[in-house]
C-alpha cells in the first residue's frame, strides 16, 4: 500500500536518496566515535537509529545536519553536501537537536512566529502550536515551560518549515506517556504525508511505532539493520512456550512429551513456570497442547513468546560489548 505513494514522493523530489552515507569515519583526537558506517535512506522512508550512549548516534546525525565535518567518507542529504551546501539544505530539512536552548523571554507563539519567517512556505503557526499540544501554553515564555513542554516546542520549531527530511534526536525524552502518544501521532502523520524521518532514540517502542526500518549502531559501527519486526532475525529466533506447571506433573514428564522438537529445552522456575524453549515453536506448542488436551489439563498462563525487540536489541549490542570510550559523549 505504501509503495505507490513512496514512488510518487520520490518522483516529485528527484531521484537522489534522502540520505546517503558511505564509509563515514569521525574521530575526536584519538577517540574514534564513528568507524566506517554506510547506509541509505530513501525519500519518504522512516528510519530509526538505535544504539547505546556513546555509540556514535549524535555524531552521525550532526554530520548529516552539517554541524560537524566527517574525518573520512562522504555523506549527502537530498543530494546535497551538508558541509558545502548548508544553506540550501537547511531550507529543506527540519532539525530537532538532542539539546538546544530558546531565548528565555519569548513566548511559544513568538518563537514559532520568528522561526516561520526563516522559511519560504512555513506551516501556519496556530496549526503547529496546536499539533504539538502547546495551544493552552502558547502565551507562556520559554523559560517557564516544563521540560516536556520545551521538548514539544523544539518539535514545533523543527517542523514549522515543512521539511522534506526531518531529523529528530531523541525527540520525546522527558515526555509523559500521553504527550509521547500525541507526538508520535504527529510524527506519523508527517511521515504519512511524505516526510522522510531520521529518528535517533533510546526507546524501542518509539522506533517500533514510527520507523519502517531500524539501524543499530554500537561502538561506532552498524551492527544490525532491518524492519522492527524481523531485525536480528527475530521472526525466526528461538522463543519459548510458557505455562504454569500443573499439580502432580514433573519436568521429566514434559521432557519426554511426544512430538517435542529435538532442540527443545525444558526449565521450571522456582515459581512453577515452565519454559520450553526451541527454534521450532510451532512443533513445541503442538506437543504441549496435544498432551494437555489429552490429559484434560488446564495450563494457566499458557503463551508462546518470540524475543521482544528489546531482547533482540540487548542481545545485539551485548554481543558488541559496551561502547568503548564511555563518557566522551557526542
Amino acid at each position, binding site marked *: 500500500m505504501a509503495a505507490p505513494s513512496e514512488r510518487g514522493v520520490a518522483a516529485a523530489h528527484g531521484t537522489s536518496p534522502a540520505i546517503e552515507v558511505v564509509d563515514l569515519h569521525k574521530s575526536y583526537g584519538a577517540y574514534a566515535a564513528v568507524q566506517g558506517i554506510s547506509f541509505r535512506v530513501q525519500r519518504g522512508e522512516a528510519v530509526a537509529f538505535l544504539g547505546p550512549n556513546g555509540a556514535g548516534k549524535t555524531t552521525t546525525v550532526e554530520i548529516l545536519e552539517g554541524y560537524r565535518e566527517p574525518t573520512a567518507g562522504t555523506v549527502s542529504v537530498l543530494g546535497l553536501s551538508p558541509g558545502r551546501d*548548508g544553506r540550501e539544505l537547511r531550507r529543506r530539512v527540519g532539525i530537532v537537536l538532542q539539546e538546544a536552548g530558546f531565548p528565555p523571554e519569548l513566548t511559544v507563539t513568538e518563537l514559532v512566529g520568528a522561526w516561520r519567517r526563516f522559511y519560504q512556505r512555513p506551516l501556519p503557526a496556530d496549526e503547529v502550536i496546536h499539533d504539538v499540544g502547546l495551544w493552552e501554553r502558547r502565551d507562556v515564555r520559554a523559560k517557564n515551560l516544563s521540560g516536556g513542554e520545551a521538548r514539544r516546542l523544539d518539535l514545533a520549531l523543527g517542523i514549522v518549515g515543512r521539511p522534506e527530511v526531518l531529523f529528530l534526536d531523541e525527540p520525546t525524552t522527558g515526555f509523559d506517556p500521553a504527550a509521547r502518544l500525541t507526538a508520535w501521532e504527529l510524527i506519523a502523520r508527517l511521515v504519512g504525508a511524505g516526510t522522510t524521518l531520521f529518528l535517533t532514540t533510546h526507546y524501542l517502542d518509539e522506533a517500533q511505532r514510527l520507523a519502517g526500518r531500524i539501524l543499530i549502531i554500537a561502538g561506532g559501527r552498524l551492527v544490525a539493520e532491518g524492519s522492527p519486526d524481523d531485525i536480528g532475525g527475530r521472526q525466526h529466533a528461538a522463543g519459548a512456550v510458557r505455562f504454569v506447571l500443573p499439580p502432580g506433573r514433573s519436568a521429566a514428564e514434559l521432557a519426554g512429551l511426544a512430538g517435542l522438537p529435538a532442540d527443545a529445552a525444558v526449565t521450571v522456575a522456582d515459581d512453577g513456570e515452565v519454559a520450553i524453549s526451541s527454534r521450532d515453536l510451532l512443533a513445541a506448542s503442538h506437543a504441549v497442547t496435544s498432551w494437555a488436551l489429552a490429559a484434560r489439563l488446564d495450563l494457566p498462563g499458557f503463551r508462546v513468546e518470540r524475543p521482544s525487540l528489546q531482547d533482540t536489541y540487548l542481545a545485539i549490542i551485548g554481543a558488541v560489548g559496551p561502547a568503548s570510550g564511555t563518557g566522551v559523549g557526542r
Partner: protein
Amino acid sequence: MSAATGSSTLALTWSQLRLQQRLFWRNRQAAVFSFGLPVLFVILFGLLFRNNGTAGTGGVPYTAYFVAGMIGVALLSSTFANLAITLSFQRDQLILKRLRGTPLGPGPMFAGLVLNAVTVVVIQVALILVLGRLFYGTPFPRNPLAFVLIVLTGIVVFAMAGIAFTGFIANADSGPAVVQVPFLTLQFISGVYFPFGSEPTFLKTVADVFPLRWFLDAIRAGYLGFDYFHTRVLRPGPADGRSTTTSVPTVVHGLRAITAVGPAYAMLGLWLVIFVALARRRFRWERRAV
C-alpha cells in the same frame, strides 16, 4: 505576513532584525539601562567637569568634549559589550546552534544583530545630543554628514569587535566581567573622561594602537567641528613669560570633517579587517565541550 517570509538574504536579515528587536525590548530592564546609563553619565560627569573650562581641550568647552566622548561610550556598550555578552550567552545556551540549523545563515544573522545595534545607538545618540544641548549648550552636530558617517562606521567596527571578542570569552558567566577590561580601559585612555594627550606617553601610545581613540577624533570632527588630528601649536607671546605651548584643534567644515580625519578611518578600517579575521578564527557556534 507571508511577504516577510522567504529566503533572500534581505528577507532573512529582516526576520533576524525583528527577532532581535523583540528580544531587546522584551528585556525591559536591560533596555532601560542601556538608555539610562549614558543619560546618567552625561548629567553626572557634565556636572563634575563643569568647572574644568577648556583645560587640555585646546579651547573647546570641556563639557562639549566630554559629551562627544559619551557617544563613543554609548556606542561601544551597545555594540561591542552588548554583542559579546549576548552572543556568548546564546552560544552557551545552544541558541546559536539551533539558529544555525535554520536557513537563517551567518550573514543575515550577524547583519540583523548589527542593524539591531543601529536602532539602539540611534536612540542613544539622539538622547545624548539633546541632553548636551539642554544642559551644556553644546550645539547639534556641526557637520551632520560626517557625524552620521562616523556613527555608522563605528557601529560596524565595534559590532565586529564584539563578535570577534565572543571567541575569547570561555563561558557566558565570565562574559560581563571579561568585557569590562577592554571596555573600561579604552574609555579611560582614549579621551572620554580625560582629554586625550593628558595621559603619560606610554598610555597614549597604547591608545593610539586601538580604535576608540581614532573613532573619538572623527566623532569630534563631525559633532563639534574640531579636527584634533591636525592641531596648531600656539606659542604664547613673550608677555606670557612662560615657555609652554598649547595645541589647538583646527576647525573643519563639510566634507573636510571627513577627509581631515582620514587616518582615523584608515585605522578603523584596519581594525575591521583584524576583527573579521579574529571572528573567523575564534567564533564558535556551540559551547566548549566539557
